[in-house]
């Protein structure tokens, strides 16, 4: 019953998102929605590796960037954009497989700084190889429609959340969470920690690569280095933490919150948006492990307890 309810709400939500472009004709509003969807994809894909498997990676932008780079190059070379995106995602997977076994030799914080260094290496290298800005050719610019981009972002966000949901409710997901909680204990119970971590990395990389592809299709002009910027990694990490890592809804709430906060602040504090978000992030790490979702769960648990004790009192 409870599960059906959740599914129903999710279904209604998706329908609403699907018909929104029919009613909203304002470009800037649609752009915000695109950004929310993009951030949902990024934060949720980060969450598969960082939240469910406990491998806090700060190299997420590498996969996002590789997807964007591959897609952009192939798309400009005349490929169908969907096909180009798939290849972009596959490039991200290949990179994930290449770095997987050395990176997972590192544990905990060492993994985190190792992935950060990797991300920075790619960021610098791509900047060296492609120093020129990449702009949409004029003929493509004329046929540019925001709505098609919106649906692409929507499709990828849905796919990412769906994959995260399926993983969370599977044997694989249980294994990942076991690795997160106690790697050695999980190993001793027959969970192959390395294989679970690598699987999480590959899935997370592929989804981030797809998101990068959509970004390459969406953005009119940008430096090819830009999607590799550490900002993307930090933003997705912070969103996942603020919403709640290791939950399905957490990264979604974090992403919506991030963009909405930016809007709210835009009236007078827009330029200090990173500061406000950074402060929130620190507060969550220090005082609210589990983010908004964890907070919500705790409140619910307390209410339930009260209700139970009240019920006990009335029926002695």
């Amino acid at each position, binding site marked *: 019953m409870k599960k059906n309810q959740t599914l129903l709400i999710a279904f209604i939500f998706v329908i609403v998102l699907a018909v929104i472009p029919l009613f909203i004709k304002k470009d800037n509003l649609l752009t915000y929605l695109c950004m929310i969807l993009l951030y949902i994809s990024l934060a949720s894909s980060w969450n598969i590796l960082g939240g469910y498997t406990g491998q806090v990676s700060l190299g997420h932008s590498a996969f996002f960037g590789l997807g964007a780079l591959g897609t952009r190059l192939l798309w400009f070379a005349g490929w169908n954009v969907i096909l180009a995106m798939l290849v972009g995602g596959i490039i991200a997977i290949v990179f994930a497989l290449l770095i997987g076994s*050395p990176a997972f030799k590192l544990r905990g914080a060492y993994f985190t700084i190792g992935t950060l260094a*990797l991300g920075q290496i790619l960021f610098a290298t791509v900047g060296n190889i492609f120093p020129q800005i990449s702009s949409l050719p004029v003929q493509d610019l004329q046929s540019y429609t925001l709505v098609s981009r919106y649906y692409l972002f929507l499709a990828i966000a849905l796919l990412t959340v769906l994959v995260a949901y399926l993983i969370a409710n599977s044997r694989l997901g249980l294994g990942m969470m076991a690795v997160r909680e106690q790697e050695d204990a999980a190993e001793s119970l027959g969970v192959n920690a390395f294989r679970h971590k690598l699987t999480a990395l590959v899935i997370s990389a592929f989804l981030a690569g797809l998101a990068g592809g959509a970004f390459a299709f969406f953005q009119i002009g940008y430096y090819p280095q830009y999607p590799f910027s550490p900002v993307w990694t930090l933003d997705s990490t912070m969103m996942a933490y603020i919403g709640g890592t290791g939950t399905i809804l957490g990264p979604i709430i974090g992403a919506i919150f991030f963009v909405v906060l930016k809007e709210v602040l835009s009236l007078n504090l827009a330029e200090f948006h990173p500061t406000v978000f*950074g402060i929130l992030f620190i507060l969550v*790490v220090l005082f609210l492990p589990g983010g908004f979702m964890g907070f919500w769960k705790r409140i619910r648990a307390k209410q339930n307890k009260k209700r139970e004790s009240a019920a006990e009192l009335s029926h002695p």
Partner: protein
Amino acid sequence: MLQPLVQNIVYGILIGALYGLAAVGLSLVFGVSKFLNVSHGELLMLGGYASFWIFKLLKVDPFVSIPLTIIFLLLIGFILYRLIFSRLIKLEVEKKIQNSLLVGFGLSTILQNIALRLWTADDRSITTAYSGLSFELAGIRFPAVRLISLGIAIVALISLQIFLKKTFTGKAIRATVEDWQSASLMGINIHQVYLLAFMLGCAMAGVAGTLVSICYSIDPSMGLNWTLKSMVVMVLGGLGSMVGTFVGGIILGVTESATAFFIGGNYRLIAGLLLFLIILIFRPQGLFGTKEGDK
């Protein structure tokens, strides 16, 4: 061929000294309290801006204003420790490293954003009357400000070393690095030691920032790369050894300048990071040379 190479290596050594100085601060904090403060580069940036504005507005020579920068950074360190980092001390080691890293990222986002809004994204550097001076020896150029900076870096390191070796407080800090539980049993106030080490680490970053703003340039987004460089050097030099860290800095500086010479200036950063990854992978746990790591 030889002369430009030697020239490059000299430049590498000169910048390497600053890497060493920056890393000593990070390493001190990590060694004492196991806080991996990834906003270290931003603290360095703050030091750089402090000297820049003191020079610009008050016309005080940046080398002379170093004590002011140190006081400023000690204060910042005090505030950051009391507000943020002190709340992490009770965590177990693994969690402490991880959470201090995350908190550090939040902090670096904040400091970077504030610096960008207050002082714009422009590259800044301090140009004094003697900035252009340089000596030549056997055809090799030695820019005066970089030589002075090398001297100051060495003086700063020696002072820190003397403080740690000779004073009671310094000994308390070193005892805490060795074994905080025993140190605590001997009546050392661990919280004060943590606080002090954190403030000293910030001060070292501040001095390094001043020297960077004199010899090179500073901008709001410089922090992350300086943090990464400091981490590379910390890993290279091993924990707990000032001399080791300083030598590590010079190794990184020379590696970078050799890369710039043979491959291209754009690949300086990448060479250092690759070096970092290689060491990380071959010595994953013990690399910070800590007792906890060996357990």
